[in-house]
């Protein structure tokens, strides 16, 4: 199976972004790791080189490293290659520049991630508007240290919280302390 077009994309990235770690994952999939401040220029560069379809932004909470990983997915309709641009921001006070000037729909994904992971996106004007969660003032719920069962036991005012916790066999996530 030839991976020519994938190699072309890797070369294309390496020409202009020497600090980026680009590798081929499999046919039609390329992964790139860059520093947070290089994401905007890289996406702009790829957009100018045929990556016209902005697929999505995914966020992953790597609580053991104290970081949140953002994965920007781009697709090229002509070459038929998918690029995942990965970058990491700190969990506390992490911030990224918005991609709204490049792709309008990036705004929607940024609002989603802001609400569920607590990452700030500089320049996104709609960030403070409620998106999916209504009247939510708790911690960002998709983070690993947010325990859904403990929250509902507390929120719904259980009289005997401990026995309820015992009954439900729940434990708050402590995986990040093991290391």
């Amino acid at each position, binding site marked *: 199976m030839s991976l020519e077009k994938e190699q072309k994309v890797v070369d294309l990235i390496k020409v202009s972004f020497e600090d980026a770690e680009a590798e081929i994952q499999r046919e039609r999939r390329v992964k790139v790791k860059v520093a947070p401040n290089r994401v905007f220029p890289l996406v702009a560069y790829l957009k100018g080189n045929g990556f016209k379809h902005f697929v999505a932004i995914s966020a992953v909470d790597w609580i053991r490293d104290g970081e949140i990983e953002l994965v920007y*997915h781009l697709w090229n309709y002509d070459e038929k290659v998918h690029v995942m641009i990965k970058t990491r921001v700190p969990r506390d006070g992490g911030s990224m520049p918005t991609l709204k000037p490049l792709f*309008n729909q990036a705004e929607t994904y940024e609002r989603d991630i802001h609400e569920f992971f607590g990452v700030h996106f500089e320049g996104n004007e709609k960030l403070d508007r409620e998106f999916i969660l209504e009247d939510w003032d708790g911690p960002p719920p998709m983070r690993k240290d947010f325990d859904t069962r403990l929250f509902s036991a507390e929120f719904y005012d259980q009289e005997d919280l401990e026995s309820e916790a015992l009954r439900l066999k729940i434990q708050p996530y402590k995986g990040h302390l093991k290391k």
Partner: protein
Amino acid sequence: MNGKNEIIREFEYFIGPQHPGITGNFSIKLKAKGDVILEAEARPGYLHRGFEKLMEQRHWIKNVPMVCRICVPDPDPNEVLYAMGVEELAGLEVPERAQWIRVMVLEMSRIQAHLSYLGGISGALGLYTAPQWMTGDRDYLLDRFEELTGARVYHIYTTPGGVRRDLPEGFEDRLRETLDYIEKRLTDYYRLIFDNPVFQKRTIGVGTMDPDWAIENGVTGPNLRACGIKADVRIDDPYLVYDQIEFEVPTETGCDMFSRAMIRFQEIQQSINIVRQVLDRMPKGPFLNKPGNPLMWRVPAGDVYVRVESSKGEFGYYIVSDGGVKPYRVHVRGPSMTHGIHVIETLLVGQRVADVSPIMFSLDICPPDIDR
């Protein structure tokens, strides 16, 4: 502004959230002058059930009954995507027969989703015969689904490693009969919907978007093909056995609601052809490669992005494993995340209030996949 216009005041309208049509709980806040829309704001969130969070707390196999609920009208792409992602991470082989069966299930799901689409958009325009016919005819397909999987809407049929059961005896003949029936009805649908002067008047040239704008703003699937762009995940990023199947990708050039409905209508015929090919060419053999004890099964660390062509556009799953017995993270990229927020907010500006619901239908927005 002359004196006559001054009496037309600005209003705020709230469309939804109680099922604006049959698309699911979703709300749009409109600012309108008279009945011309100045500003639209999409407000999702009424169907948020925290699936992504729940998936991190359950074993790999236990997520199978849950993922299908992410898109109600077209649930099977979710099951197939989740299974494909997990298989790629785990390096699990899928028997060839299972891959053909999955294609069949996906296309059956596409036909029934397109039938409810055609019924929905006609109903939103006041043509109430179409929804009755479509719902009735869709039910014949749901009968086949019930026979195959035991369920009508949420099938929970595709699992990592293959499919849950083989085809029941005589199923192929009965499916062929159902397909023949739906194919025969297509002429009636065309005359009922597309020949209807009211439908034409309300949809031609309404809710248009520019092809370049559509690509840059993340429009995918039938909505993009209605702008004349031949993009289909089944061909561009082939999965399962789609590269061995012959089918056409219809395109239209109107970029409006009429074209979007027409694309779906033509795709029904294509899907029927695909299912027939599957029935003709499906190999015999095993249908499930069991991954081992579901409670102990570990998936090697890694991440993967998989996508399929659903009836609404590109559906994608980004799955991350840290080598444990549960997924570390599953991100669902639904087609409505773009169609339902940014695209509709832009398309509605300048339209009339009466066109809000048809435009929503024409984009085939599925609120549960925004909320997840």
